[in-house]
């Protein structure tokens, strides 16, 4: 704790500001979607595969739907799945990591070995198999992604908990009769928040990939509701005629991923979290 004024801290602050700004923009536009979007995303028109115009800023797709409106509404589905799934994974990761790290012993062994099994699968492959078995619906996608990313977050929680639980203030709390559950939640958990925040932003970026890639393969939320991965996949059929049907969703996916990577990098420098 001697050298807390590293040059990274200032850079971290501006990166966090940039990331939050991008996140806010994305969330506001998609949340206000139905009111902001110029057209009904499912309304077709005879004007198909049109280029950009004053009416259709990003042109229209193969059955004449407005690409911009579909991007805005599609963002709702994609981001909703991402946020809810990561929230569930975070809850699961904190509970398992805290349980494993704080209680230790046999519980720790059992939890970690179970997580090792999930770690053995390539993440995306496991997600495909689970969604294929359960069927591609929004709740199933959320469940799958939560299961796939819980081990990663649990491991990040467990590591620092192992050392923090030996600190003096924990011993002090115990000696004045504070219950174990309360110690774990009130005296250990707050001290391991930094790495959890960084890892959560990274997992958010990864989840954007997983959700859009699953949708790209046809394992996304069922039509007719648009989503970014599905749009990218549909657009491929006529992309030489209307490149924006592909470039639009591609930019949206990259923007969302970049948002969370910028946030993660900013948080890492600001909070001085070392590691990969």
């Amino acid at each position, binding site marked *: 704790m001697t050298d807390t004024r590293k040059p990274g801290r200032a850079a971290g602050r501006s990166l966090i500001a940039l990331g939050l700004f991008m996140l806010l923009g994305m969330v506001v536009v998609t949340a206000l979607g139905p009111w902001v979007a110029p057209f009904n995303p499912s309304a077709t028109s005879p004007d198909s595969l049109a280029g950009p115009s004053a009416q259709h800023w990003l042109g229209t797709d193969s059955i004449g739907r407005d690409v911009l409106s579909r991007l805005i509404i599609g963002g709702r589905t994609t981001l909703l799945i991402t946020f809810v799934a990561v929230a569930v994974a975070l809850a699961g990761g904190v509970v398992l990591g805290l349980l494993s790290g704080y209680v230790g012993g046999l519980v720790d062994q059992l939890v970690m*070995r179970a997580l090792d099994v999930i770690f*053995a699968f390539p993440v*995306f*492959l496991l997600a495909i198999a689970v969604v294929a078995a359960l069927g591609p619906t929004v709740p199933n996608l959320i469940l799958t992604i939560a299961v796939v990313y819980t081990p990663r977050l649990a491991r990040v929680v467990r590591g620092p908990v192992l050392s923090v639980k030996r600190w003096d203030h924990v011993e002090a709390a115990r000696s004045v009769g504070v219950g174990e559950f309360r110690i774990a939640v009130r005296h250990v958990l707050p001290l391991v928040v930094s790495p959890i925040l960084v890892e959560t932003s990274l997992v958010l970026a990864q989840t954007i990939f997983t959700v859009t890639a699953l949708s790209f393969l046809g394992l996304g939320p069922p039509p007719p509701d648009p989503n970014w991965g599905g749009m990218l996949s549909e657009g491929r059929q006529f992309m030489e005629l209307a490149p924006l049907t*592909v*470039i639009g969703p*591609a930019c949206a*996916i990259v923007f969302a991923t970049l948002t969370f990577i910028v946030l993660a990098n900013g948080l890492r420098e600001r909070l001085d979290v070392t590691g990969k």
Partner: protein
Amino acid sequence: MIRLALTRVAWMVPILLGVSVVAFLLMRALPGDFVQASAGTTELAPEALDTIRRSLGLDRPVWEQYLDWLARVLAGDFGTSFVTQRPVLDELLPRLLVTAELTFFAGLMALLLGAGSGLAAARLRGRVDWLVRTVNGILLAVPNFVFATLVVLLAGLYFPEVGIFNYTPFFTDPLGNIGSMLLPALSLALAVSVTISENTRAAVLEVSSQDFVMVARAKGLLPRTVLRNYLVRNALTPVITVTGLQLASLLGGSILIETIFTIPGMGQHLFESVTTRNYPVIQAIVLVAATIVLLVNVLVDIAYARVDARVRYD
């Protein structure tokens, strides 16, 4: 050394058992019923379904079915494909080779790009460092299937005469085969090269500040010699480890890349099986891929201990 290798391999056994349980349960979690699924769209009488169920042993307790299934898998019998009615393994093996080739090229490209840019960033610092890190940050945000789609789009718009979907088998035309693999391998390699680049940069920077490098410089060795014999050699260990551990993301990414570039590998096979609900094939691919990833991780672990004398597992 041998003891370490044996411990690592022994550690794999319970994990593999767990993996097989997950793969087995995936099939049991099917909505509806396995027999119904295997019948496809054909309507079967309930009595006929019962007969099939009994002949498949589906009326026995779950754990008995699991052991039975496991025994057959260990003997190399992954069941028959719902679509072609041929043994799953016979169809899978040739495709596995294609994916292995794609993964190999992608891994090689990622290693060259990543190690090269990471080394340049660490040695030249300044603008080069800034450039490499910025490009890495941007590449990290472009998912491989988005990059691949854009590559296909650009090729279609500006080079329509170049056929990028012409996958040629290796044994008909080796050079044409390698040519047709280049763009898919690059799409797959980019994200992985970022990880390797960042790790190389960190490793070289760490080694540069070690005393033995200073001594080597002080005794008047050529900068080139110091770079080759001291810096690169010592920084290589973590870099190789990272490359090995990236295999899982290469295998996962190959599903998307093979589908986009229509390469008849394991990933495309999985995609087709998902769309046709060919569950035995999905199950087999999940098992095989997880086993390969585990094996490689253990090999990397052992290699790491072999190279780096400081590593002790006890």
